């Protein structure tokens, strides 16, 4: 009866090895627990998200295209947890898929032949489509009862919709379904795809503070105790740039899945957070 479990190529990008380490760790832990195999793409390179796309259009396509070229050899979908990487990869894939002239140019720069056979997938998409919420629910050992959250997608996962082809850009639902499957209470709010300002986090921090503070206060207004994201930029930005006290933690969706599955390594993830989520988890009896 058990459907065949898929295997994927895994593109961590820079952040999942650094600022978003806990995202990378929890993603791998959760996938491994569910029997979904991730193989890190050998010899991957930067996706160019931080600066290339603003400076050099060819480079902005060529960098992700090289990764796509590498991944194509394995014939498996490329799981790209970082929303910014996902967006760059998808944008490149879209250009390769839909624009003959651009495809020819990129192919000649990267020296490969685009086949279009593999798909670029976000973590949420893989869990939702390939594993499905009801089976996620069946894996739960410690339901996250009492944990009130709002889902936060940011801008990169769902926009532009014709490129990302993922969830509803105005009213996304997938993350909420996954969170409900693990027993947490998802609060209704309208800001899931508002910008958090991560792109200006370092250069125009006052603007970002205003954006983040608004998000945090709206989340609080919605009755949430935490935000849940699937983007390392958002997660860090939300925790780093909030000004109000008490601070509100921001989880990666994979961290909460791991927690609900009762994965022992979950406890090692929390100390990477800028806002310590442990008081909240302790309060709810969800952490030792």
């Amino acid at each position, binding site marked *: 009866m058990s459907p065949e479990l898929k295997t994927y190529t895994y593109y961590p990008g820079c952040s999942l090895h650094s600022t978003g380490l806990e995202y990378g760790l929890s993603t791998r832990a959760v996938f491994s627990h569910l029997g979904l195999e991730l193989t890190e793409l050998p010899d991957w390179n930067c996706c160019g998200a931080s600066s290339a796309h603003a400076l050099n259009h060819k480079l902005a396509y060529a960098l992700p295209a090289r990764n796509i070229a590498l991944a194509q050899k394995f014939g498996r979908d490329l799981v790209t947890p970082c929303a910014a990487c996902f967006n760059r990869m998808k944008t490149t894939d879209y250009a390769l898929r839909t624009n003959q002239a651009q495809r020819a140019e990129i192919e000649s720069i990267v020296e490969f032949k685009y086949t279009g056979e593999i798909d670029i997938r976000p973590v949420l998409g893989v869990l939702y489509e390939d594993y499905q919420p009801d089976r996620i629910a069946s894996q739960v050992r410690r339901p996250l009862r009492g944990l009130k959250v709002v889902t936060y997608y940011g801008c990169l996962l769902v926009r532009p919709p*014709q490129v990302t082809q993922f969830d*509803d*850009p*105005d*009213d996304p639902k997938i993350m909420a379904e996954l969170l409900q499957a693990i027993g947490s209470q998802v*609060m*209704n*709010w*309208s*800001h899931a795809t508002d910008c958090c300002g991560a792109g200006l986090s370092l250069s125009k921090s006052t603007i970002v503070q205003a954006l983040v503070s608004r998000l945090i206060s*709206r989340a609080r*207004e*919605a*009755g949430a105790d935490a935000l849940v994201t699937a983007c390392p930029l958002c997660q860090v930005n939300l925790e780093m740039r909030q000004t109000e006290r008490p601070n509100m933690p921001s989880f990666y969706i994979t961290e909460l899945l791991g927690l609900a599955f009762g994965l022992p390594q979950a406890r090692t993830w929390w100390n990477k957070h800028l806002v310590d989520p442990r008081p909240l988890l302790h309060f709810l009896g969800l952490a030792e």
Partner: protein
Amino acid sequence: MTPAGKGSGNGKGPIGAALVVGAGIAGMQAALDLAEAGIKVYLLDRAPAIGGSMAQLDKTFPTNDCAMCIMSPKLVEVGRHLNIELLTCAEVESLSGEPGNFIVSVRQHPRYVDLSKCTGCGDCAAVCPISLPDEFNGELSQKKAISKRYPQAIPNAYAIEKRGIAPCRNACPIHQRAQGYVALVAEGRFADAYRTILEDNPFPSICGRVCNHRCEEACSRSQVDDPVNIMAIKRFVADWAWEHPEDVRDAFEQGQYDSANDHGSLPLTGKRVGVVGSGPAGLTCAQDLTRRGCSVTVFEALPVPGGMMRVGVPAYRLPPGVVQREINAIIDQGIELKLNHRVEDLEALRQEYDAIFVAIGAHTGVKLPIPGNDLPQVLQATDFLRRMSLSNSRSEVPGNQSQDNRLIDQDPETILRDCRVLVLGGGNVAIDAAMTAVRLGASWVGMTCLEGRHQMPAHDWEIRDAEEEGIELFPGRTFKEITSEKGSVTGVRTVKVDFRGFIEGHPDFDELLDTEEVILADIVIFAIGQRPESSWLNQVNLGGNGRILVDPDTLATDVPGIFAGGDAVTGTAFIVDAIAAGRRAARSIAAYLNGEASPMPEKVASSKKVAELNSQEVSQRVLDGSTSAAPRTEIARLPAEERKAGFVEMFRGLSAEQACAEAARCLHCGVCSECNQCVYACQAKAILHDDTERLLSIGVGAVILTPGLEIMPGNVRPEFGYGRFPNVVTSLQFERMLSASGPFAGVVQRPSDGGHPASIAWIQCVGSRDNSLGQSSTKRGSYCSSVCCMYATKEAIIAKEHDALIKATIFYIDIRSFGKGFEPYIARAKSEHGIRYIRCMVSSVKEVPGTHNLRIAYVSYQGEDGKRPVVHEEEFDLVVLSVGLRPSHETHALAERLGLKFNDFGFVEVLRYDPTETSRPGVFVAGAFAEPKDIPESVIEASCAAAQVSALLGDARGLLTRTPEYPPERDVVDDPVRLGVFICHCGINIGSVVDVPAVVDYARTLTGVVYAERNLYTCSQDTQERIVRLIQEHRLNRVVVASCTPRTHEPLFQDTLKQAGLNPHLFEMANIREQDSWVHRSAPQTATEKAKQLVAMAVAKACKLRPLRRNLFEVDQRALVIGGGLSGMTAALSIARQGFEVFLVERQAELGGNLRHVFIESGRGEKPQELLDEMISAVVSEPRIKLFRRSEVISLSGYAGQFRTIMRQADGSQLDLQHGTIVVATGARGITPTEYLYGEHARVLTQVDLEGCLVQSDFMEGLIGRTVVMIQCVGSRDVSHPYCSRICCTQALKNALFIRRQVPDSRVVILYRDLRSYGFREEFYRQAREASVIFLEYDETAKPTVNPGDQDNLQVEVLVQPEERAVTLSADWLVLSAGIEPQPDNEALAQLLKVPLNEDGFFLEAHVKLRPVDFAAQGIYLAGLCHSPRCIEESITQAQSAAIRAVALLSKQQLQATPIVASVNPKLCAACGICVDVCPYGARVLEPGMTHAEVIEVLCQGCGACVAACPNKASQQKGFEFQQVFSMLEAAYP
């Protein structure tokens, strides 16, 4: 029935009929214009009622008239017009032929209600259990499956919405209306539900217990959770019904519907039918035939009736009492039942009866031919169960026993006690046998069968029940031998098998090696199948297993007159299959007895569509709360231990609450469930559930498409949250919220909580002016929808009128109030109503958790220093999306079927200078289908299209139209009053509140009344005929009807009087419905008194009524057109081409007016000057036009049909013209600017001046490297000219684009206030921006300043909005977009014509919305710029529109004045002249020297203003004379 046009008679000329597709306001106008002009009209609409979108509107801008109030008279006029034939629920399939001779194929969908019988009373909707979202109310409320689109709908009739047969019903062999009775149960209407069940099923209590409920397998609900527990609901209803016989009787008495009459054609009185077998098949057949008048005798071999229901199903599953009560109910209908009567001689029976139905069932068990099967302890399940069932009955069991049942002859209560019992078989009967054995005290019970555990034919739940009772299963085994010792059974030797199923009735399996096992048992019961005992049926063909062979459709055997059905034919099946067979047999036998070739087809034919829902639809309904999300309620079972103790029924029924809750889970797949409640309720017998689609073929000469529009869906901009946030609504929903007949009865409230919103925001341009919409067809939605700015403003004003505390805010891009009277409307909205306009495109709407309020963030420049953008976030209680307009998919498909071309926006393409002509000759279009537009523009276009058709079909005018014929009028003036009073029950509308018989009795006592009666529906066709007869019989000379509203019904009854030879004004009506029964429902007694009083008043007035005459006036069939500009020429040409002579008067030497100064095309390929040349040469060469240049009208007299004009000609001579009608097309003139150095500086031009320059090549060359600055709103929207001149923005865009395209090295800057490129003109705006035309906004309070520059250029300083940044432009040319102003001598002409001007000096039409080209004074029409500023194509349209209005009048030989006119008593008149001043129609004359005022009856419209104004009571109104009115007052207060 097919309304096929017969052509013009000779087969050569055009057909004098037209088809109008779409019966909104445009379609109605086109139909009325054509019908009045002598063209027969078929008016078709998809909807069941006419009225279109306008019917949904609350008020209309800019007059704030109630939309329904102004439209309703048109609805009635269309509905009653002799020459307009309505085709509702219809669609055009195809069009063939050519202009003048088209054949249209029309598909008319079933309405399921007989239009000729339905009176619109609404009794049906009151009993309908199915509710669905009412799309007319924006789905903010619910309607019933049988509904009327809106209260004032024409036709005033209901229609039923069906989606198809519900899957449950489709799956059921007897097509039980499960959805129907489930819906009734959900409403707690158990008696009604019982009645619905009985329609199809004579055995509800039984099928509620033991059916295999295929309905539940088909239930759509199972796609998301579990099917509705239909069987349990049925059982509940049946049990409830037996406990509440009085309620059931009451329910049955309420309607008169007799389902038996529904089954076939002729009654069968006197025929005799014998039925052999009293099982479900036999009894059903017997009942059906009895109901049709047959004498039926049922023969039953057993001492009890019921067949397997009684002797096959154990009592713990189906108590015998339950069976008996339903059988009794059937027998009591008049069936003869002969028990203990075994039929053995079919031939003898055949002699005695006209037909025989053999339904003997399959009662003989089958044993496997294995060793030991004849041992005495080997039983058969059928015998065993029958014996058990009969053991309580007193009678002896007659023959029909198996030979080897010695054991069974013993007391069945004791034989199994303490035995090991093994049942062989895996079906329901095997389970029954096993569970019965348990109850009889067997020490151990087992079952073994060939099938594996999951292949067993018994239901899974049955098997589980059996296991619960300790029955041991041995599935997947074949039986080799029944082992015995000393003649006593010891067990069954079995071998395990791999069973694969049955192939052609034979089991397919392999035995597994080394699996032999003997299952120990003392008694073995075979339950592996049954066969009928049919050996005595030697006359008919028998098949294998003794089954009777029949025709599967008719159930006829090969012997004529002998039919067979049920298990005897099919082998063992379910009760419901037997009922189906009985029903089918009855139908076939009826046909046979009537000598018909084949029986009536089954009502639920297999061709009917099954209403299947997919899982998304099902989930959606469960999620959105339209159906209960609760889980399935299972019926309770007794615990296994209790069950085993005896034969008490093992299942318990649902409680009433449980049944209602379970029923609420139904998804209403079919919408209408055909529960027949409407049939019972309809006293007019108008319901036609079997109505079918009709295909019509209609001959017409031309087609006008007016299919209207639909709104952009609210989620076209998902970021505004429509569909997610309950308090975000579309503008159409908000219209309905404002409407008194809307979902909230006119109270503005929030959908989320019903609270009153204190703050409402409108977001403009949702789905308009939006290039991002529609990825595939890039431009869809990129146009301006033209009406939203105005309707949003109107909605804001009306909302504030509802609740003055509401804060209204409109977020907009440009305010486009470009129509007549619009600009002051916006100004008043700001100044008087305090509506806030914020110029900002809102990017998204967020919802506040908890309150469902909405947050809108917007940018304004009113920051601290006034110049920086500031983001505000503001909370609103309600957000209205001003959604745009688009053609619907259906209309688009229609146009595609007709082969019409579309433009880039998906609208039908029209020729710009023939704005109603499509790409297909003879097919015209009007209204919003060609471009978004408001009501008056649609009405104008509709008339224009009618004019085109009228010109095309002019030769056939009057050939297909009819005039009513009446008998000569009886002179009754001197006769004593003989009054007839007719009082209406209106179904139960009046009758259920007012004691109608008492009112009739009372009416008989009133003076003058010689006859009074009551009618179920006084308005029905048969009652009209009756009234005519009664008038003649009783020599009645006055008639009073007390019923509903005179608004719709007075003309009907007046017509009836005319048919009876009475003057129609000898009629009076009392409204005892709206004014009585509807408003005093809770006080029937006082309502009855009030009804008496109303009748007394009407009678009192009727006694004083006198016949009124309609004066007739000859019509001079010539027209005068004043003005020879584009509009005047167009109108003159149109009238001439429609076959009438025209005098065309132009003041100047040259024709053409303002068009002479328009040179630059708009980019759509048209050449204005070519148009001008064509028009002039057409006018000059048209023989029916008499042209007078340099001539002027100097005096005018007469009235419609008989005008006389004196004209001064070029040479100064005067000419006297006689004509029947006048079209005023005197135009307007460009404003000469008095600012911005116009006339002072050579480089300052108007747009008109510029056009003259743009065609000069040296001017164009001079533009290279230069800057042209244009200033908009010069002389418009200011103090001197407060209106918008409408065309200047388009003109500026057109000229700017021309310059940029011709001279790429140039710069064009447009300084504007609001850019008003309405409709598709938005495309020019986009193109202009793309062509680098620079647009800078200025504010009216800070107009640009212009100074001469240092060379021959100009310095233009402007404070650019919204930043208020001062910008200085150096302009080489300054072009002023000067507006349009009315002709200065309009006032003088208006006085000559006795017609009004508006406050701006333009001519004022009769009604800005619905009579846009008429004057209030009859016979005078207007078109073009004298009406208001408008562009070329709009002028052309309007001129043609005026032309058909004129032709409608000219095409009549004589005009009838309205009979209700004022009159003057010369003796009382003091000649004070007040009446002359108050008369709005110029129908009063008081010239110097006259001793009293006079009435020009042809002009008088009977408004009564003069009567009220006259201080001396010298003015009286016919039909409302003082005496008449006072007599009513006296009757009311005697």
